[in-house]
């Protein structure tokens, strides 16, 4: 296979200025990936700082109700409240070993920004976070968290002033600062080698899940369900199971349903309804208009609200190995309530999409099911309350 490609998807579609940085990153990563000291250091941070391994929890009440065994991989218990830190610790450590002194990152809701700020703080690296001006306004608490963690938040006023514009701006910064800066991309997206690196750092989720389920159940699950925006938590839990006989479901944000519009998609379902194209350095499935202009997207879950998706995940769907499905805003919100009330766990709205899929399709996905509970819902409490007409 061509370097950096997963079948039809992947590649390195970036300005020439960035090519040396990507080549250096790939070289150094391949070296450090085999280095036992690097691995030990990362493992130490993952255990002692991030709180790994995370539990695999059997939902007793919901399992009984649904007539299946439903396990949750509790990534919501990772420091910071989501799986994001697995990747930021790995990449920040990589950056430090490469002699870079500064991290930049894009963030939508601020989860990846916070996780980058944490990793930067613990490793003593400067951190600048690009965030769409609209998101800065919508996610004030996370902006302040990043500030507390010592990061500098730069509002982006161009385009739709959301995640894709923050990503554009981070790429622009990087093309001027490649010599001392690492761009810590937050998902399995972007030019090679990022999709590979982020997948590898996130696959700790799947490795632990495999061990835990074998220990608990003596067998692999029938299916694994994960939400997918860019796709990092999905790739993370799927990857160690790709060659196993386990059904893999990637659940995308169906938003308000599929409607045709030239400028704005009413969903973020790039795997389900996207078309091939190039966004942020990779050939993948993207939401675009007939001319190839990128569409703005919608989801109640900010972490799923993205016009593209990781190239490897796109290929796995194309191959039929991963099944892509959609869950709309309303069903995700209803799952948000259900998990909170029945299991005592407030899920992130992103992860609530995966839960919702299981609640609706419990009789079709086997008897032993694992959902990647990629994040906790504290960050969404305010927006859910607002839907109920409650403000703080």
């Amino acid at each position: 296979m061509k370097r950096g490609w997963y079948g039809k998807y992947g590649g390195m579609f970036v300005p020439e200025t960035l090519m040396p940085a990507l080549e250096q990153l790939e070289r150094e990563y391949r070296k450090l990936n085999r280095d036992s000291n690097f691995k030990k250091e990362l493992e130490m941070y993952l255990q002692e700082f991030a709180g790994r391994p995370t539990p695999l929890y059997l939902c007793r009440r919901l399992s009984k109700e649904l007539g299946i065994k439903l396990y949750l991989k509790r990534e919501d218990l990772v420091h910071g409240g989501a799986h994001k830190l697995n990747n930021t610790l790995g990449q920040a450590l990589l950056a430090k070993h490469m002699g870079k002194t500064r991290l930049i990152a894009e963030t939508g809701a601020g989860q990846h920004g916070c996780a980058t700020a944490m990793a930067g703080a613990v490793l003593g690296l400067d951190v600048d976070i690009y965030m769409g001006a609209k998101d800065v306004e919508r996610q004030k608490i996370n902006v302040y968290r990043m500030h507390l963690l010592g990061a500098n938040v730069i509002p982006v006023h161009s385009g739709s002033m959301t995640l894709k514009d923050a990503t554009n701006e981070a790429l622009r910064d990087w093309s001027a600062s490649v010599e001392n800066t690492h761009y810590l991309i937050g998902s399995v997206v972007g030019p090679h080698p990022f999709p590979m690196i982020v997948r590898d750092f996130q696959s700790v989720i799947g490795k632990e899940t495999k061990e835990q389920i074998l220990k608990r159940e003596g067998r692999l699950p029938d299916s694994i369900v994960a939400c997918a925006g860019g796709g990092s938590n999905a790739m993370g839990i799927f990857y160690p199971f790709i060659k196993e006989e386990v059904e893999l479901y990637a659940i995308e944000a169906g938003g308000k349903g599929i409607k045709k519009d030239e400028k704005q998609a009413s969903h973020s379902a790039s795997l389900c309804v996207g078309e091939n194209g190039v966004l942020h350095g990779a050939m993948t499935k993207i939401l675009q208009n007939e001319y190839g202009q990128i569409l703005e997207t919608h989801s109640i879950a900010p972490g799923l609200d993205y016009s593209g998706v990781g190239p490897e995940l796109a290929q796995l769907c194309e191959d039929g190995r991963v099944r892509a499905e959609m869950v709309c805003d309303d069903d995700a919100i209803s799952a948000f309530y259900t998990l909170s009330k029945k299991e005592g766990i407030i899920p992130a709205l992103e992860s609530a999409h995966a839960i919702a899929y299981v609640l609706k399709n419990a009789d079709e996905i086997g008897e032993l099911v694992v959902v990647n509970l990629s994040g906790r819902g504290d960050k969404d409490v305010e927006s859910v309350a607002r839907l109920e007409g409650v403000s703080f």
Partner: protein
Amino acid sequence: MGDPSIEESKKVVEIIEKSGADIIELGLPFSDPIADGKVIQRASERALNAGMNPDLFFDLVSELNVKVPLAVMTYYNLVFKRGIERFVRDCSTAGISGIIIPDLPPEEAGDILRACRKFSVEYTGFVTPITTPERIEKAVEVSTGFLYIVSRLGVTGGTTSISPLKKLLERLKQYEVPKAVGFGISSPSQCEEAISMGADGVIVGSAIVKLVGERKYKEIEEVLRKMKEGCLRGLKRRIE
């Protein structure tokens, strides 16, 4: 194209030709221009809001009444979505002689190079001050028109110094391909500098796009004339 309005674009191109440009680079706006600075981002947004799209672009270009060669600068997704062959054929039909795609490195350019050969359209590779010798070879190999020399790291526009340029142009001396310097060229003295160091041309983008957005057409003429004079001074210095 499409800024400050679709109708005015044609007039702007004619003014630029009249002011002494030897090649005119026409921007086909993309929603997510990652190689461009603020000025071209804003212009792209305005053009898209005005309804600019590739169909309209090729129509407008076909109607242009200019003699100098034209090049299109755009991002790869627009080319890919239209169909690579179709895009290159449309360029050829509309009278565009060169294609510049800043987010398409030589590794991924195989299809478009084949189409360019088929329809006799020139292709442009990029080198920057940190491009490795192996990658310079690749960029030169794909450049049938001219080689785009990125004066400094970063995006288009801005005012930072183009000092890394000298070393780069020295490294490129051995290659015969015409070399044009762009990114951050905004003054006649920079033009003089770049040409005196061995560049065959300069590419002025943001400095003009900014004036176009403000409809300062008189100033475009003045600025371009002065830049051209700068180039000629640079050439004189190089010969001496």
